[in-house]
């Protein structure tokens, strides 16, 4: 029989105002095993913890129940407190009488009754608790960064600088990501490539960084400190060790009809290509879908012109298996598809473009060599209309419910750059709100209005109608002047919402990291742990966690790196002791548990058991407690009840059920 102490917290008035804490303590003394009960202002305070420790010593307590806030809040605090008093930390159970009781009920009598029942359930459980000891697992001192955009590059650089090996896996042929597609950055208007390229080069040259481009994560197993990852290095068809990056193959390639991904399909690229001039590595890949050699077997021109002999049509996908201690996700974003926004005529007119397409048009290396012109006829525009919040802040299923955060600022940037370079172009921006929280952001927006004469209209556009004269009829509203505006424009730029990279779902599943309804990766705590995933050892960098601009991304990337470094710096990790274990006398060896284990933690061995004097070799399930994460799937699938979960055993849960129902 345990000797249990029950400690009821007032939480100031958070609990005590609705729950009669004295009554709860008094009722606790009636429960079997309870030898001590008291209430106190703040159990989590120094003084509160000291009271628990004193009681443990004075009354030889073997089990502790704290009736307080959610165990998600202070379970650890109390575990540590009892450990200092010499008790096993897993002999503590928390009855959640704040979030689950005092905060949601008004009637004191009712709330007190419920608090008593919750206390009883915790006492019933702790009666069956057993001391648990965490195991230890080693930490592989290498990190994986998934995604080679600015977020991934920054994280990798910071980890590498701290002295740990880092691998970057990038899906496209070059690192650089979205930032490499951007022309200028707000609010300083520096050239994006000018600040990104040095970082790309630094990453490429760093002795601690290995970059796998044109590669994807194929499989992840293991757990914090000891992940095993399979990386598929797709066949580039070009030998990276031989290629000099001269570019002749791309010039000579006869297949030049593939829309350029980098230029958002505004122009075409060859079948053998590097996405952009500053690509790292500066080694082209052959797009086998487009390549004539691969389609027909004839051609082979690139191979003939390559002096280095780097073209290798027989190259195969390669699987690299590597161990990592920490994984950082930096998978970034894409613009949403606009096919559901037919009213803006995006699919009907080439002159309705997205902001990212405008970036490419404005860029000197872009499809128009940096000249602002209409994609339909190459003529310079005179009237430009920008439409904000296309697909952002939508509560229907066409768009996203969130604010994409970056559009207000980049639209101001675009408007300003256009007015600066082409003063005769009229720029109108239809907006709902202009959101400029950020250092020098509002000043930047005001400059666009005040110094550059950008016409901001509060109101939304209802429809864009392509005219037979090639112009676009824009029908919007000015909510301030209370009038409908019908305007002819030469180009319309849509600030399309951004969304997480669609691949992130697959990656999240592999990592067992949770994801929200918008496909953004969930952070462990919205305020206090914003760069960690709830899954241990997985960190979040950049837009995969939520919309961000470049400086925010870079600072989050650094934060994720610090968290990863903090993990890699440890030699050993304590593992969760709440793992499954099988009772060898009950186990049938039927394999049902192994079939449902998501971690491959269960194996079988032929073992001699002594079943009440009867010795027999039996096939018995064995749980690798370093791999087991304690979900309990196996415990339910086991028909004989041989599999049980420490800390949440069948009998413990049944005891709680009984206590609640009695």
């Amino acid at each position, binding site marked *: 029989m345990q000797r249990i102490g029950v400690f009821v917290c007032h939480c100031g008035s958070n609990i005590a105002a609705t729950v009669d804490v004295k009554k709860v303590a008094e009722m606790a003394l009636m429960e079997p095993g309870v030898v001590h009960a008291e209430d106190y202002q703040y159990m989590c305070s120094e003084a509160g913890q000291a009271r628990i420790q004193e009681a443990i010593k004075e009354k030889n307590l073997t089990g502790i129940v704290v009736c307080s806030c959610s165990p998600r809040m202070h379970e650890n605090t109390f575990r540590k407190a009892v450990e200092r008093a010499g008790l096993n930390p897993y002999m503590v159970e928390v009855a959640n009488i704040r979030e689950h009781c005092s905060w949601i009920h008004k009637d004191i009598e009712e709330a007190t009754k419920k608090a008593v029942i919750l206390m009883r359930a915790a006492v019933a459980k702790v009666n069956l608790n057993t001391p648990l000891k965490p195991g230890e697992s080693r930490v592989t001192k290498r990190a994986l960064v998934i995604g080679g955009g600015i977020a991934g590059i920054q994280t990798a650089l910071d980890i590498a600088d701290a002295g740990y090996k880092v691998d970057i896996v990038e899906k496209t042929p070059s690192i650089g990501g979205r930032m490499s597609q951007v022309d200028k950055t707000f609010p300083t208007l520096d050239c994006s490539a000018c600040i990104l390229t040095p970082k790309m080069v630094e990453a490429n040259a760093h002795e601690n960084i290995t970059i796998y481009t044109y590669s994807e994560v194929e499989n992840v197993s293991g757990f914090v400190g000891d992940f095993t990852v399979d990386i598929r290095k797709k066949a580039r068809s070009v030998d990276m060790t031989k290629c000099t990056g001269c570019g002749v193959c791309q010039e000579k390639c006869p297949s030049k009809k593939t829309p350029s991904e980098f230029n958002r399909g505004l122009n075409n690229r060859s079948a053998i290509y590097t996405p952009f001039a500053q690509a790292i590595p500066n080694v082209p890949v052959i797009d086998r879908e487009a390549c004539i050699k691969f389609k027909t077997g004839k051609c082979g021109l690139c191979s003939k012109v390559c002096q280095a002999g780097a073209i290798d049509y027989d190259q195969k996908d390669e699987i690299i298996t590597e161990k990592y201690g920490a994984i950082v996700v930096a998978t970034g974003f894409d613009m949403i598809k606009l096919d559901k926004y037919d009213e803006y005529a995006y699919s009907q007119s080439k002159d309705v473009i997205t902001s990212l397409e405008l970036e490419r048009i404005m860029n000197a290396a872009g499809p128009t060599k940096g000249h602002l012109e209409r994609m339909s006829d190459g003529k310079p525009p005179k009237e430009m209309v920008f439409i904000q919040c296309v697909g952002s*802040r939508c*509560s229907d299923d*066409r*768009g996203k419910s969130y604010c994409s955060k970056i559009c207000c600022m980049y639209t101001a940037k675009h408007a300003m750059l256009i007015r600066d370079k082409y003063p005769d172009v009229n720029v109108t921006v239809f907006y709902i709100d202009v959101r400029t929280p950020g250092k020098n952001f509002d000043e930047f927006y005001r400059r666009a209005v005040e110094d550059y004469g950008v016409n901001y209209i509060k109101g939304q556009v*209802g*429809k864009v109608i392509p005219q037979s004269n090639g112009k676009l009829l824009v029908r*919007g*509203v000015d909510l301030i002047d209370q009038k409908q505006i019908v305007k002819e424009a030469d180009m319309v730029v849509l600030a399309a919402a951004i969304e997480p990279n669609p691949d992130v779902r697959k990656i999240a599943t592999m990592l067992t990291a949770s994801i929200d309804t918008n496909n953004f990766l969930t952070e462990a705590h919205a305020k206090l742990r914003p760069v960690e995933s709830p899954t241990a050892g997985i960190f979040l960098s950049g837009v995969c966690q939520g919309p961000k601009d470049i400086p925010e991304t870079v600072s989050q990337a650094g934060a994720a790196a610090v968290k990863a470094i903090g993990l890699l710096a440890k030699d050993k990790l304590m593992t969760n002791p709440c793992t499954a274990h099988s009772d060898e006398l009950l186990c049938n060896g039927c394999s049902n548990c192994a079939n449902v284990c998501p971690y491959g933690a269960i194996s079988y061995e032929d073992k001699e058991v002594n079943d009440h004097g009867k010795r027999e070799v039996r096939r018995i399930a064995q749980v690798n407690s370093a791999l087991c994460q304690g979900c309990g799937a196996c415990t339910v699938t086991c028909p004989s009840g041989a599999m049980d979960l420490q800390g949440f055993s069948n009998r413990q849960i049944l005891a709680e059920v009984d206590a609640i129902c009695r």
Partner: protein
Amino acid sequence: MSTEKKQAEQIKEISGVNPLKCMKCGKCSASCPSYNEMDIKPHQFVSYVQNEDIESLVNSKSLWKCLSCFACVERCPRDVKPGKLIDAARQIVVRQKGQDYLLADEIPELLDPDVPQQLLVSAFRRYRR
């Protein structure tokens, strides 16, 4: 409950619209083909309901200028559907008038051979409820 509040609740109930979801972007007004004819603009309908000023709505010209084309309903990013509010306000008027609304029997007398079928249906939709 005051009459105003009651009416506002009634409109919300009939239309199934929650005016609090409106983010005042004006896309409804931008989309409206009758905008210039209206004294109370589509986006204002929402705030009138919010402010429980149903009297003004009921007496507005707009109520009968709306073509029920539902462009605003289709395009509203917040699923607020101003068109449905207008429809609901009409319903209130009809209910106030009691039985004094267009009946199917009356149509032949009113019927002009040149009236397109569509108009008839739309008129019926507007005045029959």
